[in-house]
């Protein structure tokens, strides 16, 4: 569905993507795990068409609806929790239902500055899920949430992604195995793929954690 062909991208003269080939098939959920600063986020932005490649191609379908959770929350500071969603054209009832699901039902009229870090993250998650679409790009979606909250939100994200195409960046093996059917272990910069296997090749999250710490 989305495909990068020989993608090359520099940032401030540093090579981040060095001739990367990557294909995201329709209906697959791909998780990328790798050390901080290896170029994962740049790869996501390249796949989503948010950054111009210096060389190479991005093949993406026309008329596809994409939804995002960025590494930063990127909420509108002048909009409350509810209108942060409706400002993007999300239906009001849909927004209210999603906010209730992530536990912000009582806080719909609060501005971002009145919400805690974890609540802001849940708001960003609610925005992405309520916006919906065919393809989801998630950059460390559960970052900054405590374990209890993660345990509630993770299954919700999983059910929202059913049948969709998704590209997920994470540091958490359990999150990767819960959500994804394909696991990419990466290094860099410049970004390179160490292992690209089905999620089923890891029996549990410990096995994946081992594979990350000693990838070769």
């Amino acid at each position: 569905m989305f495909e990068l062909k020989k993608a090359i991208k520099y940032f401030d003269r540093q090579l981040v993507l060095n001739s990367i080939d990557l294909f995201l098939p329709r209906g697959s959920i791909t998780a990328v795990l790798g050390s901080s600063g290896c170029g994962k986020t740049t790869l996501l932005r390249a796949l989503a068409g948010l950054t111009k490649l210096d060389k190479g191609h991005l093949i993406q379908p026309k008329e596809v609806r994409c939804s995002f959770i960025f590494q930063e929350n990127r909420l509108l500071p002048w909009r409350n929790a509810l209108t942060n969603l409706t400002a993007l054209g999300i239906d009001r009832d849909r927004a209210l239902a999603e906010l209730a699901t992530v536990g912000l039902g009582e806080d719909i009229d609060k501005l971002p500055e009145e919400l805690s870090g974890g609540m802001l993250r849940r708001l960003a998650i609610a925005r992405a899920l309520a916006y919906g679409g065919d393809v989801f790009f998630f950059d460390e979606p559960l970052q900054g949430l405590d374990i209890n909250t993660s345990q509630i939100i993770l299954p919700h994200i999983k059910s929202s992604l059913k049948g969709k195409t998704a590209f997920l960046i994470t540091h958490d093996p359990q999150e990767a195995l819960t959500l994804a059917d394909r696991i990419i272990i990466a290094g860099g910069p410049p970004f390179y793929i160490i292992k690209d296997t089905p999620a089923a090749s890891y029996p549990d999250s410990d096995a994946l954690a081992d594979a990350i710490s000693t990838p070769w």
Partner: protein
Amino acid sequence: MLQKLMVIIFWLGLWALLYLLVGRSILLPSPLQTLSALIQLSGAASFWLAILLSLLRVMAGFVLGIIIGVMLAVISCNWRFAKQLLSPLLSVIKATPIVSFILLALVWLKIGQIPVFTSILVVLPIVAANVSSGIRTTSAQLLEMGQAFNLTKKTMLKEIYLPSIRPYFAAAANISIGLAWKAGIAAEVLCTPLNSIGRGLYNAKIYLQTDQLFAWTVVMITLSMVIEKLLIERIIKGRVHV
């Protein structure tokens, strides 16, 4: 409230004391003399007409200055060449003494247009510079978010650009309304159009009616404060959507 009253009484008292020390109302009229001059002036219809027309001229200049300033800001933020082209013009306008413009305008324009023109020139560079800053400091992350969620140009403008620019715009409007008012009246004093506060000031000066000079000044200060209250606070609170 009581404290405010005390402050006002203190300064009026100081004014009265200075009057007693100077002892000549042609140099410094007392607060009471100023008040009685004000009452005398306000009995004439021409007084109110002068206020109305002066207000209209300055507000016309203020509004036109804002419109042109915003347009220049938008153009210079979208085209680098336009920015290079416009920046010396704005620097020159900012650095030129306002009197030079007024005197030039006396040669170029009709009398009634001069205060408008002067106010435009005061407002324009301030609005252009501030709105440019507002546009340029709009969060790149939010803009990318808007692009990613495929927002229309109109939604991007309404939800991201305008709220980012608003505080810069409000600051510019706040500063420039007072300056436009002063510059507009200064222009009126030099070109003395019929029915204008400037003409009232000018006449008071040549006939050495210092009490009337003070009365007109009180009128200007009051109007300036009223305009600021009515307009600027609305922009800051976001009730005027711009």
